[in-house]
């Protein structure tokens, strides 16, 4: 039961003032700058939509977009089944559960720029555990010049980093399913697969949509980790959207960088909107189910 009262805005205001200052104002500044050719902030020239035309008219933009979408698709296809499977196999109590949760959360607290260094040192053929193992097995792993190998390394590294988040979120969803559902299923002699499809998956849908959004956006805009592995190489094979933007910023191309940021922000908004619709539909469906 919620009361309708617009004075609630007074309670929400502090949070949104902070967000306006660090989020909304920068976005406005950015949009303004994206219409200028900027030499210094004092001397800038109006160019209108020129940067937008340049970026959206370049094949490079669409190639990077394709690579980013591809990366997100691969990462989600690997991490979601794996994360779900881990969550389902984790016991509901006991030391394996505690230990498992701590273990899964561990990679999440590693500073992001250290993740590529850790993995590069891990696959180093002289000092790394995995590197030496592969060398012994006669596998030549070349993440610098072999695009497929760079991709494999990125996907494995990203899975190491994030599968825990999916597993933890899914586990939290599973933990909130009332035991009576399972009892009803066992009376109906449902098998494991049916329990998963008809009870667990619907109950998990809310938390899974959230996990999907977080993981999709983070992988779609992966920057620090991908840059650390091979700086977008070999031959742009891992140049994702955000690496293009990073290049503009580092090259002090403020105008194009601002335009690119605006484009990326609108892509973000579109994606969030799509997920928002999904969440609303899911909520309505579950209400209908309950009522």
């Amino acid at each position, binding site marked *: *039961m919620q*009361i309708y009262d*617009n*004075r*609630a805005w007074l*309670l*929400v205001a*502090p*949070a*949104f003032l*902070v*967000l306006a200052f*660090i989020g909304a*104002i*920068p*976005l406005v500044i*950015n949009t303004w*700058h994206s219409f200028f050719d900027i030499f210094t902030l004092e001397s800038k020239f109006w160019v209108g939509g020129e940067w937008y035309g340049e970026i959206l008219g370049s094949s490079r933009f669409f190639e990077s977009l394709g690579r980013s979408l591809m990366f997100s698709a691969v990462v989600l296809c690997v991490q979601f089944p794996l994360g779900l499977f881990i969550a389902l*196999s984790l016991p509901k109590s006991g030391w*394996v559960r*505690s230990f498992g949760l701590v*273990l899964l959360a*561990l*990679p999440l*607290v*590693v*500073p*992001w*720029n*250290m993740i590529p*260094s*850790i993995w590069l*040192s*891990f696959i180093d053929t002289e*000092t*790394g*555990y995995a590197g030496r193992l592969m060398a012994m097995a006669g596998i030549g792993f070349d993440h610098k010049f072999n695009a497929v190998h760079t991709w494999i390394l990125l996907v494995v590294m990203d899975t*190491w980093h994030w599968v*825990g988040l999916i597993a*933890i*979120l899914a*586990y*939290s969803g599973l*933990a*909130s399913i009332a035991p009576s559902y399972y009892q009803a299923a066992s009376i109906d002699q449902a098998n494991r697969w049916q329990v998963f499809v008809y009870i667990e998956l619907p109950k998990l849908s*809310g*938390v899974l949509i*959230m996990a999907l*959004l977080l993981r999709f*956006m983070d992988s779609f805009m992966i920057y*620090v980790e991908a840059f650390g592995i091979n700086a977008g190489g070999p031959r742009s094979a891992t140049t994702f959207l*955000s690496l293009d933007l990073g290049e503009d*910023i580092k090259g002090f191309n403020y105008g194009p960088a*601002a335009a690119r*940021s605006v484009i990326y*922000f609108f892509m973000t908004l579109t994606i*969030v909107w799509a*997920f*928002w619709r999904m*969440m609303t539909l899911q909520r309505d469906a579950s209400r209908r189910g309950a009522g």
Partner: protein
Amino acid sequence: MMRRTLRLLGFVVLAAFIILPLMQVIQLSFISTLSRDGIERGSLTLLNYANVFRTDRLAASLVNSTIYVTLNVAICIIVAVPAAYAFSRFRFRGDRAAFFTLLAFRVTPPIVLSLPVFLLFSSANLLNTPIGVALVHCVFNIPIAIWILESFISAVPREFDETAFVDGHSTGSFIIRRLVPVIAPGIGATAFFCFMFSWVEVVFARTLTITAGKPITTAITSLFGFQTDIGLVMAMTTLSLVPGVVMIWFVRNHISRGFTIRV
């Protein structure tokens, strides 16, 4: 029996996958990886850790990171508790739009905001201070804090508020004196997630600290050069993991709450 063995095996494989890269880090951090007088290359040593604390900018970066992360957690919790209370108890004009805004800010990539935030902060004198980094990390942490706290507050029955109001509490004094103690585990979980996302963030923290107040992440990057002392890098990395591990241990039973957001 067969299934239990398989499950155990799976668990061991998973544990190895997660732990081995980190084991490697810890192992290298105790090894002298450069040729030095008196210490053989490859020998076991505590020298790397001693060097971290002997190098001013490394030791300072540990302090800087701790300061801005702590500040960020404090700001987020202070502004998020009343907001989460409002979202949990009231409907108001624009509440769904407000929730959508939170979602959008949470997933806006830092690199998209980094340049304008830099320009804004340079005119507001917020560069090179922990306050600047603490503020900008709110952009992804305030939404998280509101969601987690909202789910904990919604678990508190409404009668609890009403009893307090009958006792003469105002909204403010109710939130501080009555609500906060009840949702303490939620505040702990919130602190953990805000801490985690702020501690590991690189792009903002690096862009906003040019001359001073440099965080741990920048300090580590600066160690890479012509002749990188990998042992030192790994000692620094190991130290950067310690606070996170301690936090995980404290909130391990509440870690899985939250993130189930209301739309």
